[in-house]
């Protein structure tokens, strides 16, 4: 893993989390140099926004609901993006605000990759839905998106 890339050309999430339907975490990974607790807290609070967005979609329009929820809320340091699957598993991604180069499409594609990796995990019969995620392949995917900080 190349060191010192710090927000350069790669994907640059600072924290990625996978939350189960019942709103408990299945997987959280943060860039280690930062204060992880802060990110855990951020992800937790962002769940409220996610729920709000889901319910706002409307009862009748569940089918047309978009999986990508977009920017959940921005703070001065970072922005939080959300994505929810049809089975109500949520992906939350925190990116650095200073990283202005990150476009919405890139975020979408990152979520799509996450979703694909997640479905691969689900295909594994040894994985019980609701367990914590220990897959190396998933770790690799997430690592590829995390900010490369030495």
């Amino acid at each position, binding site marked *: 893993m190349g060191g010192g890339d710090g927000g350069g050309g790669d994907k640059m999430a600072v924290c990625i989390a996978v939350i189960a339907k019942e709103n408990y975490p299945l997987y959280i990974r943060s860039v280690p140099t930062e204060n992880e607790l802060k990110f855990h807290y951020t992800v937790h609070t962002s769940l409220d926004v996610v729920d709000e967005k889901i319910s706002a979609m409307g009862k009748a329009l569940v*089918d*047309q609901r978009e999986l990508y929820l977009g920017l959940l809320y921005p703070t001065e340091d970072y922005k939080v993006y959300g994505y929810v699957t049809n089975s109500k598993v949520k992906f939350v991604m925190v990116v650095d605000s200073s990283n202005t180069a990150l476009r919405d499409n890139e975020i979408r594609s990152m979520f799509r990759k996450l979703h694909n990796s997640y479905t691969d995990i689900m295909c*594994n019969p*040894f994985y019980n839905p609701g367990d914590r995620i*220990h897959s190396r392949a998933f770790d690799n995917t997430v690592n590829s998106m995390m900010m490369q900080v030495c």
Partner: protein
Amino acid sequence: MRGGGGGSGAEPGCKMEGLTLSEAEQRYYCDLFSYCDTESTKKVASNGRVLELFRAAQLPNDVVMQIMELCGATRLGYFGRSQFYIALKLVAVAQSGLPLRVESLNTVKDLPLPRFVVSKNEQESRHTALYSSDADNPASYSGVIPPPPGRIQVKKGSVSHDAVQQRTSTDQQESTSPVVSPQQSPPTSPHTWRKHNRHPSGGNNERPLAGPGPFWAPFSEAQPGSSTSSDPIWSGHSPPPHQENWVSFADTPPTSALLAMHPASVQDQTTVRTVASATTANEIRRQSSSYDDPWKITDEQRQYYVNQFKTIQPDLNGFIPGSAAKEFFTKSKLPILELSHIWELSDFDKDGALTLDEFCAAFHLVVARKNGYDLPEKLPESLMPKLIDLEDSTEVGEQTGEVGYSSSPAEAPPSKSPSMPSLNQTWPELNQSSEDTAIVHPVPIRMTPSKIHMQEMELKRTGSDHANPTSPLLVKPPDLPEENKMSSSVKFTAGNTVTDGYSSSDSYASDPEQIGSTVTRQRSHSGTSPDNTAPPPPPPRPHPSHSRSSSLDMNRSFSVTPGQQQAGVVAYPPAVPPRPQPSQGAGPHVHRPVDAEGLIAHTSTSPQQIPEQPNFADFSQFEAFAVSGVNKEEEDEIETHSEVLQVEKPSDSASSLRGAKADGRVEDKAPANVPTSAAKGTTPLAPPPKPIRRRLKSEDELRPEAEEHTQKTGVIAAVLASQPSIPRSVGKDKKAIQASIRRNKETNTVLARLNSELQQQLKDVLEERISLEVQLEQLRPFSHL
């Protein structure tokens, strides 16, 4: 950090932390390092192995300690690569009798390679054997060996594995010679050695270098004598290069001849040798079966696996479902985490099921794990499903082209020559990635789960590359928007209710564009498509529906106030003008009910109409069609309505109403419309007819619909009706359209007026509010007085 570590080996020398190594030395050290790197960390050599190695160097203990201290391992506590290399160099220094100094590392030019006697490891002995002289020569020679070239060919140590074993036995005899060449050289290595040996012997004779001279002579004598399983290729090859090298040696100045010779000879020989070695390596590899390549499946193992597979799934071309595999592998009592990882590695196409190849790979990994091997990070090439067939043919090809030297065979998860693994490993990726782009044309199939599975099964059966099964899966998202789907896929979705169609396909997640596109496609297939009208590609559903529903609400609310009359007039988009000519008079009436208000109005009159409902049974549909046919201009709205209505899943009453509605009116259309309407599905059709019916029905017959459903159903019905009925009632349509236009305009003006009035009121109220606030503020200071 390291220049040529890991077997690239092509650099002339490597500079590492102040340590200059010749190419030969570098390769040798690299090999040894890999050998010691039992944990495949690539960074640290395990202390156990290193100590063994040092012991094998037959140096006194204190020298060993000194070496370890000098190289920094004692300080660090472990042998990093650089430490290891330095240590090896120091061993060589010590073995050649020079004092151990750090400075001597780089100053001693023609240092022979360190010699290790140990016979424990085939690796080591192999090395030593390679580096040593030929079989017959008991005499030891200093490390001036062309070992690297020989070693290069030993791809994974498999080559000389057997040879090494034999050699080691004889090795013990010599005390002086670090390596005892076996009496009879095994197939490949001897050849390689011979060449090397020739070189040094030739070179050494001419050079006043330390020691090797006398050794070489015997070598050269021995070589002709030693003829183990002679490889014809070898014999063919050896003389020419030999000669060349002789010549080259003669030319090169003695002092630096050694080092110079090595690269030259090495290069000459390696190229020649690689060809031969490739074949021999392959032979050896196969002979040594899984010994050198822990991930290779032997025949008997494979047979066992296949039998096990059959116990679970008798069809060899079929799949083992994930649950069965889970039970089976759980019996192996490995921890779930490891089984999970094994599954990840072996389920190549990520489909949750195992084919025969995948099963064998998984089983093999389980076996390896139980035997203590660590699980690799990536699936080894020999276990990859698609590579198993091509292994043989590709290996040789790859190796032939390869001059450099493969990573040390000692690594537990071996990779064949660097080019091989990279090539093989890129295959799946390439294939998969190329599939993304290439797949579009060949497989324009909608990736519904059943189809995906079918495709996979076919592909697996044919044994074609596994990327294909994955490709549909992988490509799904990109493919979807491309609308290359065949009509069958469309019908597939059409078969479901529209809502299901949009959401059921996993690939179609929730993409409005896609939804729109599918809807479009459905429309294009019209006739059969449930509800949507043919022409206008709808904007993403939510919006129109939203707008629609909001307008509906508004209408409804308005209807309450202005009165039902107005409400009725509020041109509900679906307001299908009374299409049937006979019911022209009823047209206006018909329009009215279209609205929500109309519905309300209808409800009021419903009692009258309810009894008529049963009559609607057959005709309403036709009417609906006819009506919708008339309303071309309103198709957009109708569509949206229909969509909304679909979502709401109109009830059966709609259909019954429909039937009642049509009575008499659309008889001619009935026959044609019945099948179409039926084809379209009852539910979606149900709603549309309702409103249409309303409109069509001159009297309040249609009123019964007075539900919101009917409004929307009317829209849909109108839409539906429009499709088949268009050709028929063109004349009627025009009139109806014009009438409806008129009505709509009226409604519009009324609403606009209302709107402006309300705006005015709003403004007034706001002004009042402002003034009140001002007053309040003025008074506030006095409030507490």
